[in-house]
């Protein structure tokens, strides 16, 4: 009776009001942040001709991205794409300006965490982890995958070195390179690209999988005129441009389609990989030119 009297007294009402006020303020702040983010995304999209909000980065469903790239893990419950924007971008492929489909987004996945309290009871919570990614659809198929990611702490001090070892010790200490085709790996990672990665891409991961190139990780600088995750978008687009420009010619030559299906009648190098208006031969027919279906900017998928 005493308890009932206490909970129904004027103090309880005050607590309710405070809780409601806190919830309201939290909702207002969240909503304001969401609106700012939407505005920032719109501003960023406006800077690039032909760019738009995307549900599927480069027209690829998240189910086809998950697990294919180390930077896009499945997690233990949900995973998906947030704040995706993209469109055509002119990149220098094999020394030629080539228009590629590019998308910037945040990949999220939920990691299970189990904790035990003092009485021995376990509780499960899910922590949402996010990774900044820029995805590029290359104008050719590599047919093989190459992954360049940060080396582990033990690897950095030289105790465990996995993957392919290259000429530069500084590179080997910072990056772990995985790829079934060793020849392709050495063609890709020439001395200049090793140097570029060491100086500008340490701590980030670069992955090739068939016709997709994913660059993940935080860039070194951000655009203060934008908000939230979008602040990093201009820098990651810039980093992608620089990275693709740094890929050696011999790598592109190795990827060139065979004579039978792609050799043009006059110059074997004239029509490849393509002028800006030259659509890649493998462009997905189901990739619509405009914004893709689905909820804008957020496509969670459950296991």
């Amino acid at each position: 009776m005493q308890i009932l009297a206490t909970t129904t007294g004027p103090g309880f009402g005050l607590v309710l009001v405070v809780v409601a006020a806190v919830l309201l303020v939290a909702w207002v702040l969240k909503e304001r942040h969401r609106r700012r983010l939407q505005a920032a995304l719109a501003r960023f999209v406006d800077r690039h001709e032909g760019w738009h909000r995307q549900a599927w980065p480069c027209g690829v469903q998240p189910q086809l991205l998950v697990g294919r790239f180390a930077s896009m893990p499945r997690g233990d419950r949900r995973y998906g794409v947030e704040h995706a924007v993209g469109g055509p971008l002119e990149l220098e492929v094999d020394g030629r300006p080539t228009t590629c489909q590019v998308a910037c987004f945040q990949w999220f996945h939920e990691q299970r965490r189990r904790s035990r309290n003092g009485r021995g009871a376990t509780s499960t919570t899910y922590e949402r982890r996010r990774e900044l990614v820029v995805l590029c659809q290359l104008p050719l198929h590599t047919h093989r995958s190459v992954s360049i990611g940060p080396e582990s702490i033990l690897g950095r001090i030289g105790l465990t070195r996995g993957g392919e070892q290259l000429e530069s010790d500084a590179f080997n200490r910072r990056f772990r390179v995985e790829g079934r085709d060793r020849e392709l790996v050495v063609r890709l990672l020439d001395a200049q690209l090793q140097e570029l990665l060491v100086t500008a891409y340490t701590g980030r991961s670069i992955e090739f999988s068939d016709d997709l190139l994913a660059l993940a990780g935080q860039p070194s600088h951000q655009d203060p005129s934008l908000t939230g995750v979008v602040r990093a978008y201009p820098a990651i687009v810039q980093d992608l441009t620089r990275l693709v420009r740094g890929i050696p010619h011999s790598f592109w030559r190795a990827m060139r389609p065979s004579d039978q299906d792609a050799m043009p009648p006059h110059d074997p190098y004239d029509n490849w990989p393509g002028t800006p208006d030259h659509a890649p031969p493998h462009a997905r027919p189901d990739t619509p030119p405009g914004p893709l279906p689905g909820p804008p900017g957020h496509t969670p998928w459950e296991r």
Partner: protein
Amino acid sequence: MELWVLVVLPVVVLLVLVIWSYNRFVAQLASIDATWANIEGELQRRHDLVPNLVATVQGYATHERGVLDQVTTARAKAIDAVRPDVPIDQQARAEDALTQGLTSLLAVTESYPQLRSDAAFRDLQRQLVETEDRIAAARRLYNLEVAAYERRRRAVPSNLVAGAVGFTARRMFEIRDPAAEHAPHVPR
């Protein structure tokens, strides 16, 4: 613990380590030989391309006898250098001479627009560049294998095994990278 265990156990552990180290050396040498065979295969492919290239150029550039002879001679020397008794450095220099000859040959073709537009010539040039790309990649793989082997051969304690068994030094294969010189110019 009994005394014999204290004596035998370290000996067994040491023996296992020696065997493991020896087997790794053997595996590394096998890998070096495999990558070297890969280089030789690609060099052979380049040698085979040269006569066709010379014949095609000869059809258009009849006055360039000097350059054509230089390439033919360099090819003959490069083929002659592909023998087990020829030191690797000598073979590398022979390949460099062939590269230089091919560079001169391709430079000469710049003066013959009809030749440049000949489909057979363009196809041969493309094949040459692709082969040279593969040579460059194979050479780097070989040198990486040699570098890893040499690192182990000189480092403690594996140098003790290498010294005792007599694993000898291997030389790297250093040649000019011709693919960049021989690739067709890409108009910007």
